[in-house]
């Protein structure tokens, strides 16, 4: 690369940065504070404002490589989420060293498709991050995720274990999860994509987007021992909210979750959207868990998330769009 070209690239980068970040002028400061104040008042006085509008979920049947790009298209194109040169964090399920057929982990094809989409959209780095329960190396290997993304130079699997990789956050509004250590990487990330597998969960009922985010938390045991679990799961949304949520229901684990082995239903379905509560709520209705049909609101942590105003749980408030 010549010197001139290099300079041009740099200039382009600068230009790009100017567009996306606000300069810290007085006017901008006033503008943002005014907007924030309005929003804060609105949020306080009208907690149902957010929930008043309907949420849309995009549902498609087929292979990951076909459906996931279509979901992103409907959501306004991958470019709306992933800017060139940005950093993306994908949160799949890879906590267990089980083969993909057990449906305890996100299918490697889905992870590959999303990572590839982001990279094609210009992502500089795609971090596939999960704080695994079982041995990290085994999880990477046995889930097939490591093999699937081997050819993607920009994609990297990240299993944060050391406390130095987490950052402590607190939220006064939270009733249960008043403080939590979440993975530091989230702060650097421009786009956070949640990509869980649809599975049952022995304590949470089902494990989808909201429950899946526990994979970015360091001390999960406390959520069981010191807090009301379902509320704590829901309140994670105070600290981290995915920009895009896609539930991989290629296979769904209907019982004995989250570790399996249990009954696996080959649903070959993907559910996508920007509202994690609506996506989860809809995904609950895809299958019957433990042999019974449930609605989204029957799952306690999803219900709590909706009550906290993070999204819609009622089926009447969710528009289903087939892709």
């Amino acid at each position, binding site marked *: 690369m010549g010197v001139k070209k290099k300079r041009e690239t740099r200039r382009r980068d600068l230009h790009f940065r100017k567009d996306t970040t606000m300069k810290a002028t007085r006017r901008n400061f006033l503008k943002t504070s005014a907007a924030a104040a309005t929003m804060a008042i609105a949020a306080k006085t009208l907690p149902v404002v957010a929930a008043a509008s309907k949420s849309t979920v995009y549902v498609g049947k087929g292979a990951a490589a076909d459906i996931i790009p279509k979901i992103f298209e409907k959501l306004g194109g991958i470019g709306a989420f992933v800017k060139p040169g940005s950093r993306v964090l994908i949160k799949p399920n890879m906590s267990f060293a089980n083969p993909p057929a057990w449906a305890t982990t996100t299918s490697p094809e889905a992870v590959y498709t999303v990572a590839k989409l982001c990279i094609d959209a210009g992502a500089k780095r795609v971090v596939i991050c999960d704080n695994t329960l*079982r041995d*990290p190396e085994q999880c990477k290997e046995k889930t097939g995720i490591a093999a699937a993304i081997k050819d993607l130079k920009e994609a990297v699997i990240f299993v944060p274990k*050391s406390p130095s990789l987490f950052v402590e956050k607190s939220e006064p509004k939270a009733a249960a999860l008043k403080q939590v250590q979440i993975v530091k990487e989230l702060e650097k990330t421009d786009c956070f994509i949640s990509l869980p597998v649809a599975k049952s969960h022995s*304590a949470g009922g089902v494990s989808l987007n909201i429950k899946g985010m526990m994979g970015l938390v360091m001390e999960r*045991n406390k959520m069981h021992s010191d807090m009301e679990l379902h509320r704590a799961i829901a309140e994670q949304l105070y600290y981290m909210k995915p920009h895009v949520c896609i539930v991989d229901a290629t296979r769904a684990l209907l019982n004995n979750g989250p*570790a399996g082995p249990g009954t696996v239903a080959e649903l070959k379905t993907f559910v996508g959207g920007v509202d994690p509560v609506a996506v989860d709520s809809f995904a609950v209705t895809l299958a019957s868990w*433990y*042999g*019974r049909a449930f609605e989204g609101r029957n799952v*306690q942590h999803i219900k709590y998330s909706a009550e906290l105003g993070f999204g819609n749980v009622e089926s009447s408030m969710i528009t289903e769009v087939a892709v």
Partner: protein
Amino acid sequence: MLKKTRLVLQIAFVILFTVSFFTLTRVPEAYHVPSHWFLRLNPLVSLLASAASRGIFPPLILSGITVTLLTIVFGRFFCGMLCPLGAVIDFFDRFLFKRMRIRNCRPPLWAQKIKYVMLIGLISMAVLGSMTPLFMDPVLMMTRFFTLVINPLASVAAEDSKATLTPVFNAIGLDNLSYSVIHIPLYYGGAGAATLMILIIGAGIFDRRFWCQYICPSGALLGLLSRFAIFRRRVCADTCTSCRACFVGCPTRAIAEDGRKTSTAECIVCGLCTARKKSCNSFGFAPFSRLQTCGADLERRHAFAGILGGLLLVPAIRANASLRRSDAGRCIRPPGAIPETEFLGRCISCGACMKVCPTNAIQPCTLGDGFQRVYTPKIVPRIGGCEEKCHACGYVCPTGALRKLSYEEKRFAKIGTAVIDRHRCLAWEQNKECLVCDEVCPYNAITAMIVQTTTGRFKVPVVNEDLCLGCGMCEQHCPITDQAAIIVYRFGENRRSTGPYIREKDKAEILKKRQESDSDIGVSLEGSVRGTYEEPVSRPSTAGNHGSEKETGDTPPGFAF
């Protein structure tokens, strides 16, 4: 010539040892590389492990015989070239202790016999069925030192430097490096291993090759074997002027003061003597000569002392309460461990299994587990559970104390049984929604059941002992601080010295049991937990689960209407 060749070989073997050690990993299936071959080289290990356990492990015997034959021909080449501990001792002798050696504290020549007494003592102990592998083989001591001391230190240092260098990685566009996971194994007993090693190396301040000359029982055996070595130091009687150059240069005091006679028992074939003066002596093949060589100057009383020492030590080791049934510690052996008595005779406590364990679950036993067990492996479930799809420890065990198991066999090699401490369990005692144990159990051995307690109906975990293998994943992840509320105990363990773990008639029975008890969440269980609690009277079959659920109106955990 010999001096240089030896130096090159010695360095090569140290590098090989280090590389072998660090390839002893679980991932990706690196344990199939026989990187633990180093540990099998010592004939003393083959001898003692076979004698003490009254069993033969063919790979160990074969390599032991090979080295024995080579020693008979080439003398104590093992000590001079192969031994990694010898190399480390040489290094420190040369670069640290050469200047600061305390000359007038050199042990007397007869002290060289101590090692033979030790050897005879160890052999007589092994014959009586006891083994103290604490310091019998330098290779195993090095492996143990690397496992318990070097590897943790190196990993911690690597992790720290990764954290420090992360901004640099990011600046130069190699930020993918900062996402790498560094496995940090930590162990009990590192201080003991380090102290032993420091003492061994530090003894160099008194004399060169202190350990090898006076203490090493393996060196003693190799010395006895090399009595008739035909590759030896030859002295030309005509040119020898008895100038004492070889006598002074010899690091193991194998050469007589007149320079004409070499003790094949002490000579480690290092070639320092021949490098000093070439005209009068050389190394090469020569027929046995009583004039030029002598062996270990052993008398009957030395052998007696050894045997007596061994005889006295056996009861001294065994006469402690730790081998009784006791409540001190839980000694859960890794899967595939042969029955305990044989295991104690076979395990050389080298730590290869601890190095290879991906979850850091295998830890050395400490004095609390009994003197005989010190540094032998045990699983500490609170640190890590035994990974389901892993059998690396059996593959790297050099002596067959842990047997090689296929994944299927491992499903039958039960190492213990988990027990729920209901009074400390979050679900049982505090009625919280926890069930982390159920979540992590790889074998579906924990079932969430709905029970009637005095305060209502709650979902609680129950262990199916027929499905539980004792892996300890539940204990590792139990959110209760300090001691877990679900604990793995050794009872129900399945250990066999020979024969397959899966026996056809047992297999059918075990599988049937597992089938019966493999039930889903939602099985309801009547009875009151506090007060007059009764064990479940009926367990509906798998097919009927959901039916029974509807009858009681219970929902699986996490759901509510």
